């Protein structure tokens, strides 16, 4: 955390450079440079991609020529690409649905019930997230083959759901741990049975976590390649399409679609973070329950 020093409480001996309206320490300047370097390291390639998506030269190469939107135009008139995009949305939405249906009850069970094997379950539920997509993909492919299931978007969807359920479980579980369970007792006290308590009290209090983790899961599913590669049939998702196109050389069309995906992903993640933060601030940490 940076600390804003006022003039009078600046530590003795700090070298002080007056920079116009504000007082700056050497510390703060160094910190700023370090921060900017990290951000540059992370985002420079993306910025480059975005710039070239507006460049008229069909070859991604400096110097920049003319400013244009035509690559966006070609991208949106490419039917194969649009179908791939639609497939990706379908898979993402389906995977999120699977994550929620499996993840929320799992998180609830982990939070409030004691049962044999709980500690093991808690760790194993997170495992698919840390497992390389390659392993998940190969093992599920073998499984589906063994069961005689033919590959399609549905198998991709199941694959993504398996890998991403952990995100919903961990987020919802963390939320439940921070939330004052006595409001559920209060609800029961006021006459609400378990279902109505869940609907009126529990759900509204974990809703933003659900939205947030769904967005993250969706984003991760949207650009997933390894699992998709093994589990898809004839249908292509967007990342698969891009990958197969790129093998023939990077076209500005890909830059354009890439820029759009980045923009949408950043927006979704910002929304997710923003929503989750608001909820925590409102309800505060759960207090320790004491038996008296």
């Amino acid at each position, binding site marked *: 955390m940076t600390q804003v020093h006022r003039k009078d409480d600046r530590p003795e001996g700090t070298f002080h450079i007056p920079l116009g309206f504000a007082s700056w320490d050497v510390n703060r300047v160094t910190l700023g440079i370090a921060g900017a370097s990290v951000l540059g390291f992370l985002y420079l390639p993306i910025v480059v991609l975005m710039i070239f998506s507006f460049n008229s030269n069909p070859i991604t190469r400096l110097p920049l020529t003319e400013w244009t939107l035509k690559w966006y135009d070609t991208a949106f008139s490419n039917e194969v690409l649009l179908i791939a995009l639609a497939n990706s949305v379908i898979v993402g939405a389906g995977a999120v649905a699977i994550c929620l249906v499996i993840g929320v009850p799992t998180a609830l069970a982990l939070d409030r019930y004691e049962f044999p094997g709980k500690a093991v379950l808690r760790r194993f539920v997170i495992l698919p997230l840390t497992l390389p997509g390659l392993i998940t993909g190969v093992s599920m492919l073998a499984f589906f083959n063994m069961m005689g299931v033919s590959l399609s978007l549905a198998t991709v969807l199941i694959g993504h759901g398996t890998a991403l359920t952990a995100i919903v479980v961990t987020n919802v579980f963390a939320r439940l741990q921070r939330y*004052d369970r006595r*409001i559920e*007792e*209060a609800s029961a*006290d*006021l006459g*609400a049975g378990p279902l109505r308590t869940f609907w009126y009290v529990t759900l509204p209090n974990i809703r933003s976590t659900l939205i947030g983790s769904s967005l993250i899961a969706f984003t991760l599913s949207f650009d997933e390649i390894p699992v998709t590669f093994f589990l898809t049939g004839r249908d292509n998702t967007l990342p698969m399409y891009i990958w197969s196109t790129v093998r023939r050389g990077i076209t500005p069309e890909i830059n354009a679609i890439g820029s759009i995906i980045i923009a949408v992903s950043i927006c979704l993640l910002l929304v997710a973070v923003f929503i989750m933060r608001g909820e925590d601030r409102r309800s505060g940490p759960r207090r320790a329950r004491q038996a008296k």
Partner: protein
Amino acid sequence: MSPIVRLENVTKRFAGNVLAVDDVSLDVRRGEFITLLGESGCGKTTTLRMIGGFETPTSGRIYLGDRDITALPPYRRRVNTVFQDYALFPHMSVEANVGYGLKIARASRSEIAATVAETLRMVGLEDKSRQLPHQLSGGQKQRVALARALVRKPEVLLLDEPLSALDAKLRAAMRVELKHLHEQLGLTFIFVTHDQTEALVMSDRIIVMHEGRLVQDGTPTALYDRPASPYVAGFIGASNMFPARVVAVNGGDIVARLRGSDVRCRANGRTFREGSDAIICVRPSKVAILEDEASLPEGFSVVRGVVRDCLFHGDSYRVEVDIREAEPFMVDVKLPDDVSHAVLPVPGSSIAVAVNPAVVTAFLAEEAW
């Protein structure tokens, strides 16, 4: 009249074999303000939670009126709770919090609005109805919690240390307010606290609990004047408590010998034998400094010692007298109206204290602390 709440030999054992409540039986009369009082961990909150339905007794029965509610979940009991940290619904406005119980009971929209408005007016929060709980002060949250619990017109209102999160001044004001509310509504209140002042001020009857057991059940004055055990005597109000030896027994009176003095006291139904050990207990406010030994009332005992300290308590002084026991003997001296003329004992000087046998409680040494 039959009791509104009855506990029959209720025991609660938690996982890990922790005995939280040990064979508690209790009748709560309709309209009574009853307080479960004890230190933390004495089982008072667990007892309340069993009445509310949040815990199930390991053994024993709980009745609400004539109905056995032992196994009923909280949402099937006509009992409402004011929780310790209020447990307000953070995502609902004050209005929605208070109206929740009615919405669950499927009351009509207009009925909910009317009852909520009326209840909020009763607790003085009509102007806060649209705010969220986190925008309220502690005292306001407290009132919302109270309104929310009252809106369903429960037969019994359970209050789990509702004042403990408030600051001292507000707490004192809320005590009075709660007591008035109880008188006004005529409901049965079961109140849990570790604060003896709270219990003494508000309750019709106090149940003192200690290590899961019920140790005394009585009115505040009975508890104060006739504590059933050394534990209760020590827990409620200030007490001088000393181990002593019984040196004489005649009829209902005994004489207990301290290191420096003999104290006459009533046996109060206990059987003491000469030579047995006892614990004697006297309130500092019920003894007086003896100015002139000749004026000692008939039958009173005299405790002699040396003044150790003199502590100002606002409307009185507490004189600590060293009587060669481990603890000093405390005497509360009420100040005269004109404080400047008060002659206070000087530390180091000898002093005599007159003790009326009627205000001394003697316990058998075997009685548990």
